[in-house]
């Protein structure tokens, strides 16, 4: 059975859509925790709403990832490097789940409902607790920095494949010219 040379269209749409969403969320999160300006409240509301969207998106994306064939890495890549690449992809998935979940849990522990665009409010899943809030609030920040580190390494590796090695790995996600 032959493997495809690119990720299928649904996987590529999810990848680039989420890349845009994740950077928006990271920049918004880093800025809003410091700001004393009136836009703070608006941004916080959007951050929570889009956080719920990010959680749904990563679940959809995981299903697509598990159910579709993924392109094989070129034979020119050593086995160890392939294993590291795979591990980094699953770490990215773990971080993409941990970000919205820790955000949801910390709001729960603070007794603050998460409202999605004023349409509906997510249920509370844990008691209001100061130590629990302290834990999930710090997890939310630490995972954010871990995600930033992973994404930067991911971009560096993708550009290295695309610009230096030119082995088709970058094109498996950008799509190939016909």
């Amino acid at each position, binding site marked *: 059975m032959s493997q495809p040379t690119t990720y299928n269209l649904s996987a590529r749409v999810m990848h680039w859509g989420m890349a845009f969403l994740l950077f928006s969320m*990271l*920049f918004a999160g*880093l*800025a*809003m*925790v*410091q*700001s*004393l*300006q*009136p836009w*703070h*409240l608006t941004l916080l509301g959007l951050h929570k709403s889009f956080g719920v969207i990010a959680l749904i998106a990563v679940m959809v994306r995981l299903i697509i990832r598990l159910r579709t064939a993924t392109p094989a890495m070129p034979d020119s890549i050593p086995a160890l490097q392939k294993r590291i690449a795979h591990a980094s992809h699953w770490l990215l998935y773990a971080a993409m789940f941990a970000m919205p979940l820790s955000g949801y849990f910390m709001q729960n522990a*603070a*007794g*603050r*409902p998460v*409202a999605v665009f004023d349409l509906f*409010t997510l249920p509370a899943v844990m008691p*209001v*607790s*100061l*130590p*629990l*809030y*302290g*834990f999930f*609030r*710090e997890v939310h920040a630490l995972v954010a920095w871990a995600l*930033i580190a992973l994404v*930067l390494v991911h*971009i*560096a590796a993708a*550009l*290295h494949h695309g*610009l*230096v090695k*030119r*082995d088709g790995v970058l094109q498996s996600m950008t799509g190939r010219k016909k």
Partner: protein
Amino acid sequence: MLKQKPSALPLRYAVIIGAVGGLGALLFAVAGGLGQSSVTAQDFVNLQEGNNPHLGFRRAHAKGFCIAGEFVSNGSLQPYSIAPQFAATSTPFVGRISIAGNNPTAPDLNAPVRSLALSFGAGSSRWLTAMNTPPVMAVGTPEAFYQQIQALSPDPETGERNPERIQAFFATHPETQTFRNWQAGYTPTASFASEIYHSINAFYLINENGDRQAVRWAAMPTISSNEELDSENVNALQNEFFARVEAQPVAFDLTFTFANDSDDETNPTVLWPEDRQQVVAGQIVVHQAMPENEGNCNEINFDPLVLPKGMAATADPILRARSAAYAESYRRRAREHFLNSSLQPSPQKESENSQ
């Protein structure tokens, strides 16, 4: 695979380093305050907590106790707001009475400001309000408020306030006049139950037609108290309130003042004229008072921007800034409680128990 010119390699690496390094640098810069105005939430809380933070405590209004009771609404605000608290019904609340300052063991009677904070309802009906004894803010922006706290802070060398610095601050901020007039005419009473607690900032009530009415509110006492308190007792006011609630419930009238079109609801330094319409929405009845380690108010961040449907925040910059600064204080004390589960919210009660 294309054969590449070796001479192009350094350029390609430069592109990679530039792209990844640039993105990383931008993220670090935003985390470090790029794009922020001169004062951030962290600056504020750093200033409030001082050099020796009291771990696990609120960075402002550190000393307080929990209360519980009900808001008995008379329904008179129903035409103005769809918030369920204003229907002719009674809504239970959890609250906190506190004094200003970062010291959880400060003497009650020395505090310049006393506070009443309440939390009613749940989910999209939740309403948090943190009310203080002054009716107005001294200043109208977070930057000026930061300077005010700086000016009022004790000199690190002498441990005393510097009157010249305070004078200089007020001289350059004429908007502080209303606050200073209140301060000059204010006499602290002998009970937390006999104070007036003001929302200070204005909010909107929103009815079923979507009409907005700008309001301020205040909890007005229903008793007066001028009895002599023991000025040596650091918990004089707290003990007085505990004894009072033990004997009978403590009530406040929750009174709303309606702005006219000529009032600027975004300016917390100005009092609205006295002829403005006032509506008593009902009574806040305190049935219980307990130390923080026995109550459930310590885990509440009394963020004044948590409002039910039927109420909304004005664009008042101080109101918006309060929310962000409270969140940073909440984060810090929550982290301390997570890292050290033996932290107690109310050390003064422990010494009472051991007596």
